[in-house]
């Protein structure tokens, strides 16, 4: 996968190549997740996976602001962040299938995909678990004299964990270079946001820590990019953290493991009509940035590259049994 978008600068007039790369990334994420649905039906997934379908614009728009030296912490619903950061979908899929060529050699699975070499500090199986880790990454990078920014993704469910409050307070008092990116998909498994949160907007909580906050349409990749990029620039200048709330929706159930769907079907259908990929596709065509045939070519390329990722994963052998007992300590 090309990683141009993760390395490019922050010019306000984005070149067409960048805008097309975002389209490609969003399509790659969706194709990856849809493939998991079929692999799961075929009984090839040993555990679970939490799909990012419907939320692709957040990961792609946010990671577009990342520089080579930056870090990110992710969540249990982390495939989108990993692909947008440029991780190899082949090794990711191998990990989801529990194979030896996976990022974690089959020991982590979907919820623990990590690539330290790209600053991807890990997906995380604990809701809210990555937030204090991001604060630590901010502290550590400052101590090392670096200019890295930490992009911290979490869901609205995590905002009711103590770790959220402790971490935002700590990041604010030390003015750490962290961008807190809340992906508000309105449901914490079966818990509706409106019933679980005392405040109607996560972003209102930014005021508690005297940090800038912005609410964003999480289904608009350019809007996400603009907001995250502003927050990242502030962080790079040393003016401290920000809290962004990206409003979106997951199309699938909580995980491939979850059989019961309690969300109203009408609500799901409404959100599907706000498909972030379709919206972006139309916009690219309207603005003349792409032609239908160009987008079709990208679609075919995405499908081909997914095929090779899936083949790589399926052909990767299961890990040797002896490795189960290795690697607990350094």
């Amino acid at each position, binding site marked *: 996968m090309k990683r141009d978008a993760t390395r490019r600068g922050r010019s306000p007039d984005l070149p067409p190549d960048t805008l097309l790369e975002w389209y490609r990334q969003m399509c790659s994420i969706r194709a990856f997740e849809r493939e998991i649905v079929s692999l799961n039906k075929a009984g090839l997934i040993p555990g679970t996976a939490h799909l990012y379908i419907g939320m692709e614009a957040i990961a792609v728009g946010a990671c577009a602001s990342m520089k080579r030296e930056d*870090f990110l912490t992710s969540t249990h619903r982390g495939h989108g962040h990993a692909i947008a950061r440029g991780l190899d979908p082949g090794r990711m899929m191998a990990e989801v299938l529990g194979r030896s060529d996976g990022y974690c050699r089959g020991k982590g699975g979907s919820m623990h995909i990590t690539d330290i070499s790209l600053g991807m500090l890990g997906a995380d199986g604990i809701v809210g678990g990555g937030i204090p880790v991001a604060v630590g990454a901010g502290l550590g990078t400052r101590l090392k004299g670096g200019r890295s920014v930490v992009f911290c993704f979490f869901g609205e469910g995590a905002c009711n964990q103590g770790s959220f409050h402790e971490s935002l307070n700590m990041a604010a008092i030390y003015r750490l270079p962290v961008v807190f990116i809340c992906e508000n998909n309105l449901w914490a498994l079966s818990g509706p946001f409106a019933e679980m949160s005392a405040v109607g907007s996560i972003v209102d909580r930014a005021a508690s820590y005297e940090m800038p906050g912005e609410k964003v349409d999480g289904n608009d990749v350019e809007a996400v990019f603009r907001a995250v990029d502003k927050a990242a620039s502030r962080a790079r200048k040393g003016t401290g953290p920000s809290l962004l709330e990206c409003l979106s929706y997951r199309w699938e159930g909580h995980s491939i493991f979850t059989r019961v769907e309690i969300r109203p079907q009408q609500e799901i259908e409404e959100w599907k009509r706000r498909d972030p990929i379709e919206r972006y596709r139309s916009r690219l065509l309207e603005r003349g940035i792409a032609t239908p045939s160009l987008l079709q070519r990208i679609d075919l390329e995405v499908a081909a590259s997914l095929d090779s990722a899936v083949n790589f994963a399926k052909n990767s052998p299961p890990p040797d049994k002896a490795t189960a007992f290795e690697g607990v300590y350094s």
Partner: protein
Amino acid sequence: MRTVSYAEALNEALKEEMRRDALVFMMGEDVGKMGGLFKVTQGLLEEFGPQRVIDTPISEAAIAGAGVGSALVGTRPVIEFQFLDFITIAMDQIVNHAAKSRYMTGGMVSLPLVIRAPVCAGIGLGAQHSQSLEAWFVHVPGIKVVMPSTPADAKGLLKSAIRDNNPILFLEHRLLYAQTGPVPEETEHLVPLGLAEVKRSGTDVTVVATGRTVPLALTVASSLSAEGIEVEVIDPRTLKPLDTATIVRSVKKTNRLVIVNDGCRTCGYAAELMAVIMEESFFDLDAPIQRVCAADVPMPVAAALQKAVMVSEEDIATACRVAMVDKLGRPGNPSEPKETQT
């Protein structure tokens, strides 16, 4: 050799390692301007500045998580919990993150994180400031657990812990901070992790003691020696990884074993040690293994109650006599577990 207190020895270790490696830093509640509630971090802020000696808000989960995150990006954090009891608020980051990072990433990640925490039983602080929770952490794969009993070990083990690339729970005992002892002057005084020490040689009964109970066991050994019982006292120093060989060697010699640990009796560290020796050395034993632990009750405050619950020298002496029962006959005051509320 010069004499230094346990707290001073820890302070020296921190200073020396921070001078040696600019990536080592310290964070926790009151560790900076105040120099630590128990003065272990005194002078650090003045020497290393606020970037490397960080006073934190009262946010244990975030302190632990910040330790994990800063270790992941290549620094070497030392975090302090003011009392071991407060670590309960940070368990997610320690158990689900620090301990598992390396394994669940297939070995991609190293996590050099030292978590210092005092055990404060014995000073009347009650049930939420007195617990010996070491067994919880020994149970979790991925963490090492260290518990020094002398100033020299405190210094040498803390230096080794800071240089180690794994998450380490470093347990200090409040009642040991003021204890003094010989500590070598050289800055390369390192005590390796995973190595027990025979603190006193003896032929009749082996006492394995941890932390605060090591000096108690040594006092008991002196008094029993006057009665003709020669006690061998072993301090594992590192509870995990455990130096099983040193203990087995001793049991093969004495054929009797008493295990002393400040934690509660049920499922405590002593229980694990007992199981290890039953597996490794059952046929070397001439008597049932005795364990001396705190009673299975929350720590009370009143001095008499606290004393009744905690491990005492009398308890250790009685257990040694019981372990010698085939030679000495039945002692007048047989060792029985401290009473448990049912």
